[in-house]
């Protein structure tokens, strides 16, 4: 928790996303920082001493020596291997702002970054630095011990840190922030955000049970921040795939490191690990094959993906495919090079004996020059490869979903019981004769979903599956789990929830307003709705397609799935908007909102309102800031605009109502926001207590109506404290927030200045409040004129 807390900012609207932090471990960089004293001892050591210590240690073991005079780090000493008596020395420079090896022009803002970088890529070194395995098992808990380590313990494994898991943990800690690859001297940077969005499993794979040397090499490219500007100040070709024992090539050229596909030396595996289909290895379906090269020109290009697909109907994990490392974004390879050009990459995936074939191709390297035809094939192959990789992802999802399903049916299991309880309670809940408001109930459902997810994460078998999906970030993993929970828990109750929303929206008059305003607005063209003159609207064909999408959105039970469909609709609306305009015209919200409104007025408003509420209340709060959240907000806003449309109503008052509405919603979401993230203390479903709470809450609210005069109290903190006092629910939520999520606490303050308006039903029925709203308006207008 401590570690993850560090990433969740306490600032409005900011979320720090730890790409790999969920296991509450320190990042490798933090770990290195913590034990810097061990690998860069402060007390002056001399060369001999270091040499003696390093001798006989595994290749890549290193220590950094400080200059005896300046006590600045001045020398990097690296062991060349257990058999090798020699210890390699590299001069370190500190320019006052950056560290660099004097042979290299890569500079780093601090020493741990340098070490981390050279542990991932050799650059000018003969071998990659080896960071002891045990460091990966260091957590926040035993972090303090790190600072007490000594160089000798650094090189061996400190017993107190020795755990059986340390051999496997290597990969899980690597924060994936950039991928550097090189081909023929070009540098290819793969945007980390792309990886975050799409996962990098198609790029990389993980060997869970591989020997450490494999995973070492295979750790690939990922570094926490080696590239962050200060870290990587000049762009050079770097290969992060070097075998530690590889001998340094000519270091004078710009291309200092061999790229994965230019392995002129077949004895140097470049860390490409290919999965073989299970048929090839009936006894060991998970066996992987390490090869030195990706290029197998003798293989017919376009057939391979097919073969591969057939031979492994269930790709179990994505491939570490090297083809990404060549020409796709890069200029064609130098034809005269002796290195064989990266003409065929992907195809080699399914080839078992690549190494032999690679050798055989050496005699005629020039015959593999890329041609347009080949390029086309490459593109096709890449597409197949992506499909393949997605297939791998899908199958992971499937495995997870199946397992979750299985767990939900396992008699007597905690998860099965919880799901059963959830479904029963949800089906019992619903429109109360006493008129309990909708949102609270839905928030209960939301928080139960979160609890179910937590329960699920307690299962070792689920954790095992999740751990095997290494190349998704936490958010993606969360949403995978979330989706599987939707399937077992939300699916059975979704119809009931629709009913429920429908009833509460009917009761509060929203549908009526929507319908009557629909009659007022339906004839309006998009310009009358505020759109600018040139903006286009969907034609009848597209409108029809949109309507179909709306109905499939309505059919989807998962809010996440609904959001995806919503995005598709928005996309086609954009398309129509700019259909008749010259390219380059940009349509922002000024035009999109009217256009969406225009579309909504031609759609089933009631169903859309139900779906919108469903998404707003049940979507995992972490999803609310992104693109999905934006368009959901816009959909909500548009529906709100329609339902509250009153031609002659003062804009200000409308504004107040809108604010009330949104703040009620925001307040509710804030209360449960922390639950949606992984929290240390697991919650069980608190159905009963929630009921009690909401009852108390509504009691509290009736009691506090008279407090509404102070609602406009300028001091937001005071208001929020009053609020805390009034509502036990809020109080509890806030204390929970305070425990687990600083950000949430902050958010509740965020909501505070206006969150003092009470929930919808009370608000809209209570006449006093209405009056109060007007008072507020007046006050505001006065203020405005004073402004």
């Amino acid at each position, binding site marked *: 928790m401590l570690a993850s807390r560090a990433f969740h*900012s306490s600032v409005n609207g900011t979320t720090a996303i730890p790409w790999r932090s969920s296991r509450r471990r320190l990042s490798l960089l933090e770990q290195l920082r913590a034990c810097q004293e061990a690998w860069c001892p402060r007390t002056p050591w001399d060369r001999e001493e270091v040499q003696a210590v390093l001798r006989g240690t595994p290749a890549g073991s290193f220590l950094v020596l400080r200059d005896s005079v300046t006590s600045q780090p001045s020398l990097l000493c690296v062991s060349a291997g257990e058999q090798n008596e020699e210890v390699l020395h590299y001069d370190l420079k500190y320019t006052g702002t950056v560290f660099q090896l004097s042979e290299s022009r890569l500079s780093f803002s601090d020493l741990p970054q340098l070490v981390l970088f050279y542990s991932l890529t050799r650059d000018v070194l003969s071998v990659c630095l080896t960071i002891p395995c045990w460091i990966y098992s260091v957590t926040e808990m035993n972090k303090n011990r790190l600072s007490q380590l000594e160089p000798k313990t650094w090189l061996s494994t400190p017993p107190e840190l020795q755990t059986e898991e340390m051999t496997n943990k290597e990969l899980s800690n690597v924060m994936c922030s950039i991928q550097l690859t090189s081909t023929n001297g070009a540098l290819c940077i793969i945007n980390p*955000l792309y990886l975050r969005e799409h996962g990098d499993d198609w790029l990389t794979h993980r060997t869970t049970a591989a020997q450490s040397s494999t995973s070492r090499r295979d750790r690939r490219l990922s570094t926490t921040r080696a590239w962050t500007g200060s870290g990587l100040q000049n762009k050079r070709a770097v290969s992060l795939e070097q075998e530690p024992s590889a001998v340094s090539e000519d270091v004078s050229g710009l291309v200092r490191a061999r790229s994965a596909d230019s392995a002129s030396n077949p004895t140097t595996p470049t860390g490409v690990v290919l999965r073989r289909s299970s048929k090839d290895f009936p006894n060991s379906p998970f066996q992987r094959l390490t090869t030195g090269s990706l290029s197998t020109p003798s293989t017919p290009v376009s057939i391979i993906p097919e073969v591969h697909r057939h031979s492994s109907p269930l790709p179990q994990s994505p491939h570490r495919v090297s083809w990404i490392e060549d020409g796709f974004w890069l200029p064609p390879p130098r034809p005269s090079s002796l290195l064989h050009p990266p003409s065929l990459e992907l195809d080699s995936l399914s080839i078992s004996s690549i190494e032999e074939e690679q050798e055989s191709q050496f005699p005629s390297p020039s015959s593999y020059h890329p041609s347009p035809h080949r390029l086309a094939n490459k593109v096709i192959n890449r597409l197949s490869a992506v499909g393949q990789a997605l297939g791998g992802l899908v199958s992971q999802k499937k495995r997870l979903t199946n397992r979750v399903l299985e767990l939900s049916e396992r008699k007597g299991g905690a998860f099965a019981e919880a799901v059963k309880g959830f479904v029963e309670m949800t089906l019992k809940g619903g429109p109360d004769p006493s008129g309990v408001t909708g949102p609270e109930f839905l928030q209960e459902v939301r928080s139960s979903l979160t609890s179910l997810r937590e329960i699920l994460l307690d299962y070792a078998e689920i954790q095992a599956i999740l751990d095997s999906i290494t190349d998704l970030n936490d958010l993606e993993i969360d949403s995978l789990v979330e989706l599987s929970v939707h399937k077992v828990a939300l699916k059975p109750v979704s119809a009931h929830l629709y009913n429920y929303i429908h009833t509460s929206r009917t009761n509060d008059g929203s549908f009526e307003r929507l319908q009557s305003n629909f009659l007022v607005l339906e004839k309006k063209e998009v310009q009358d709705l505020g759109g600018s003159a040139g903006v286009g609207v969907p034609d009848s064909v597209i409108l029809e397609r949109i309507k179909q999408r709306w109905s499939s959105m309505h059919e989807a039970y998962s809010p996440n799935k609904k959001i995806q469909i919503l995005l598709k609709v928005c996309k086609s609306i954009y398309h129509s908007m700019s259909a008749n305009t010259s390219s380059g015209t940009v349509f922002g919200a000024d035009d*999109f909102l009217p256009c969406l409104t225009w579309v909504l007025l031609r759609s089933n408003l009631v169903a859309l309102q139900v779906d919108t509420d469903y998404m707003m209340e049940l979507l995992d709060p972490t999803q609310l800031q992104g693109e999905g959240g934006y*368009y959901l907000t816009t959909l909500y806003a548009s529906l709100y*605009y329609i339902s509250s449309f009153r031609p002659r109503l003062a804009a200000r008052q409308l504004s107040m109502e809108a*604010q009330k509405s*949104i*703040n009620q919603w*925001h307040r509710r979401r804030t209360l449960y926001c922390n639950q949606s993230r992984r929290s240390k203390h697991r919650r069980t479903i608190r159905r009963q207590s929630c009921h009690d709470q909401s009852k108390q809450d509504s009691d509290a609210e009736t009691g506090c109506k008279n407090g509404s005069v102070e609602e406009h109290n300028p001091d937001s903190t005071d208001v929020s404290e009053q609020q805390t006092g009034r509502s036990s629910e809020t109080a509890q939520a806030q204390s929970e927030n305070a425990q687990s999520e600083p950000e949430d606490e902050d958010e509740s303050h965020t909501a505070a200045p206006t969150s003092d308006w009470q929930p919808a039903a009370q608000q809209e029925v209570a006449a006093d409040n209405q009056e109060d709203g007007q008072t507020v308006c007046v006050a505001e207008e006065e203020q405005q004129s004073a402004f």
Partner: protein
Amino acid sequence: MALRELKVCLLGDTGVGKSSIVCRFVEDSFDPNINPTIGASFMTKTVQYQNDLHKFLIWDTAGQERFRALAPMYYRGSAAAIIVYDITKEESFQTLKNWVKELRQHGPPDIVVAIAGNKCDLSDAREVPEKDAKDYADSIHAIFVETSAKNAININEAFTEISKRIPVIDAEGGPSGKSFKLGRQATESRRTCC
């Protein structure tokens, strides 16, 4: 190293060039091929700021008066708001002042406010003197830039300034940014009126 997602809300009259500013800002993303958003109303761009990556999630709002009421749905939870006016339209500057006021009252308390006078390439038609706007911005401790989305003037600068003012995450240690607490000021000013 962490990726921080910063929700940034764009406010201002219709036609002042809100989305043009964002498009200009986003178009030279370090990898434009990657995950483009579906439309110009919501765009993202990630920039590096010190040891963090700041991913700006930019929420555009409809500037028409009739949609003003909907703005709170957009600016709630924002880390920053960019309020845009058109230097050739005095009226848009008055609208801007109303937005500032509304944010003070109902916006997130720590929201960073940036004021952008757009279309500074059209200085012949200028109606809002730069000094007036600058003085106003200073008086509310907001970031001030005159921008030209057309000529790509001051666009990146505006976002860099925002990055600077985003409070540093405490738990990460390090120097804290010059954070601008609109909330506190709003508190004072509202006290006087109630």
